[in-house]
């Protein structure tokens, strides 16, 4: 597939690369989603992250993709996006 080159329609005062979404100042008081992509051992990794977050008082919600071979289904993504303030997706190898 060839790459497409477009001309910038804007004033060019913003950088062209798509920026990541703004981050919060702290995780305290927020709900962090931990999304297991279903590769082996990822659950143990996320269990430990959950312990570390919970001990700080950060609320944790656990999620799991049905299979690591496909992207997360739309309803799973939607649920994460409405119930969580941030998400960690692990562990790809």
């Amino acid at each position, binding site marked *: 597939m060839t790459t497409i080159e477009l001309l910038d329609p804007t004033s060019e005062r913003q950088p062209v*690369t*798509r920026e*990541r*979404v*703004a*981050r*919060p*100042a*702290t*995780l305290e008081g927020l709900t*962090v989603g931990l999304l297991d992509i279903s*590769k*082996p*051992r990822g659950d*143990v*990794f*996320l*269990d*430990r*992250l959950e312990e*570390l977050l919970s001990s700080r008082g950060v609320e944790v919600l656990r999620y799991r993709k049905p299979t690591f071979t496909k*992207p*997360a289904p739309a309803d799973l*993504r939607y649920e*994460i*996006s409405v119930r*969580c*303030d*941030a*998400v*960690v*997706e*692990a*562990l*790809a*190898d």
Partner: protein
Amino acid sequence: MTELEVRGLPAVFVASVEFVEAAAAQARALGFEPASVFVPHPIQDRTDDEMRALAEAAAGEVWAKLTI
């Protein structure tokens, strides 16, 4: 991954170092580079204690990439 950021959710992707090049290629192809943390390979044959140690080692960087 990008889908969640598109919905306004800060996201961090954790992968083994084997994934570094693939992640970079995908970032170029998608025109977007998600926040990533890479942990040492291998993963599949690690004991539970070893996995927990990897998580502790990576945790700081994960929190840092989820916050300002």
